[in-house]
């Protein structure tokens, strides 16, 4: 069997987030194909529950990508998004799951280099940590 590919899910806002993905593509950037993007209107829409459920369903890592905090389309949306991500991270540490599996990123539509960076950070985490083991098997 081929080597297992990492599974990374990203919640990406439809404003600067997706524009940043597009610009990276149109600037010829190549990156790992392990990322699956779910679009949300704003990262403020993301709920801790979505992230936790994605991990439960089998994602190795989850990230949220929104606008720069001072340039958010919905003004305070990406600040809200970060709060949710931070909350999930603290919950994960409490139950003994590596908090690095979940991350918040901000970008503007003109930052072509940013998305490939995010992808490599998150796929590295996913490769390093592998799948989350079922609870019973944890020490």
């Amino acid at each position, binding site marked *: 069997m081929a080597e297992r*590919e*990492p*599974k990374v*899910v990203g*919640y990406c806002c439809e*404003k*600067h987030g*997706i*524009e940043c*993905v*597009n610009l*990276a*593509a*149109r600037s*010829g*950037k*190549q*990156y790992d*194909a*392990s990322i*699956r*993007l*779910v679009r*949300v*209107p*704003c990262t*403020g*829409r*993301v*709920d801790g*529950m*979505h992230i936790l*459920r*994605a991990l439960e*369903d*089998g*994602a190795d890592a989850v990230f949220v990508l929104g*606008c720069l905090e001072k*340039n*958010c*389309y*919905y*003004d*305070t*949306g990406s600040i*809200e998004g970060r709060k*949710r991500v931070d909350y999930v991270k603290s919950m994960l540490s409490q139950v003994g799951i590596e908090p690095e599996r979940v991350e918040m990123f901000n970008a*503007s*539509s003109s930052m072509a280099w940013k998305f*490939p960076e995010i992808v490599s950070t998150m796929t590295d985490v996913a490769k390093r940590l592998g799948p989350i083991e079922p609870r019973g098997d944890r020490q």
Partner: protein
Amino acid sequence: MKRRIQVVICRVCSGAANVLDVEKLLRVANEAPYVGSAIAVNYACNAKTIAQIVEEAKSREVDRMLIIPCSKSDVSPALFQAYKKKAKINEFLMETVDLVGEIVLPHRDNPARAQAKAESKLLAAITRMAMLEPLQKSSEKMRTKNVVIIGAGVAGVEAARQATQAGMHTILIEKSDKEVKAPGVVMPKTRLVSAKGHAGNFILTIEAGEKRETLECAAVVIASGGDWSDAKGPLVQACGAKPLYRLVQEIGEGIISREGVVIVDTPDPKADITSAQDFAWEDAIQSAIEIRKKSPETEVYLLFQEMRALGLDELSYRDAADLGVRFVRYDKKRPPHADPKDKSKIVVIDSVQGQTLSIPYGGVYYASIAPNPDNVSISEALRIPMTESGGLRRGSMQKGPIATPRPGVLVCGSAQFPRSENISRLEGRAAGALAAQLVSTGIVEFGGSVAEVTPDKCSACLTCVRTCPFEAPFIGNAGKAEIQLQLCQGCGMCVGICPSKAIELHNYTDDQLSTETASYIGGDF
């Protein structure tokens, strides 16, 4: 509801042919649940193809469409129009999938994984599509075509001109009683007290003299400008430094000192300055040039810590230097000051050359413009956030450089931060044109993919009321949260934060997002 999906892949632009196996994508789509038709076309933006797609939609009796074009912004609006009008499909049941930007371009070196990703993307999109609900937008008429402009400075007057030209009715409110030459109604000695409503139908309360009145309008332009009163600072006390606009006036009137002119960034050089942007540098350089042209015997010095002229105005550095304008950079630890022995000279240490200069002057002027203290009350009335330095803050750059975070409210000129006259005028023109564009439709559209509260679940905790940046949620008569649809922008922030899970965002529900995610994770990676 039928929930039958039509999948349309545009072969040409999706660039798929080089990297992806389009026939296989079609097979995958056809085998997926809810798919009623999956076709690949050449040029989905071509009129003939559009007709073909619509025909197919009708004969297969689909009620929703997933289109895979070159990019979302490049899909011909004609396709959506035809789909809506001829195939009678709800506009919220048409979505695009960006295979090019997300897969074809970034993974062209790895076709095998690109194909796996494309298939899983397609299946996730189909899963999402099947869950979408048809939504209706509502609309109301704008009650007026009024555009209210706050402040009759350079930017405000220009905004009035532009909006009037476009057929709007402008009302310019100005706090002073200065003479104003502008089209439309001008109300002197008037200030804004409070504002209600939303873009298209605002109700303002204004105070004209002693009298309070209400004023309806469709859009608001803030052009409150900077603080033009004289600043304080050691250079004002010691050298009688004046604001730059006075120099501009004096040049206009032909009063130019022969003893030399010194333009300094701020009257208080030791103080912290936020950034180089905070000065009207273009005006400073232009004034220096004018002086040298009109009165070549007058020496002109520009003393600065950082200087930034925008865009083509950068060329004026050279023009100024060619005319003999002296640029002197100083360090705020060794600020320019009046010569203690001879008050008619300014002493400054050139931080580049290390030289100490003693400059005789006939007049000293400063290029900084303090923020307008009225910004506080304007920001409270219209609910626009302020910047750290006391200006009114614009919204995300994606909304344009003169949009505030609040729809229907624009900000131009030095109300944001100091602007040179020319840029104020340009921004005023833009604000007038944009306000006119907004108002000219005469209709406010709202609803669609917006938030909705389930009253039974709401515990009236006010979290949504506090969180929404647009102030759409409120506690209604029934003691439960309600959303004022005209204000809701559909961001979903309130949905994610409601502790009782009482709010849903149409077509971005928890269930829809989690099912889409699960579809991805269950697929190949």
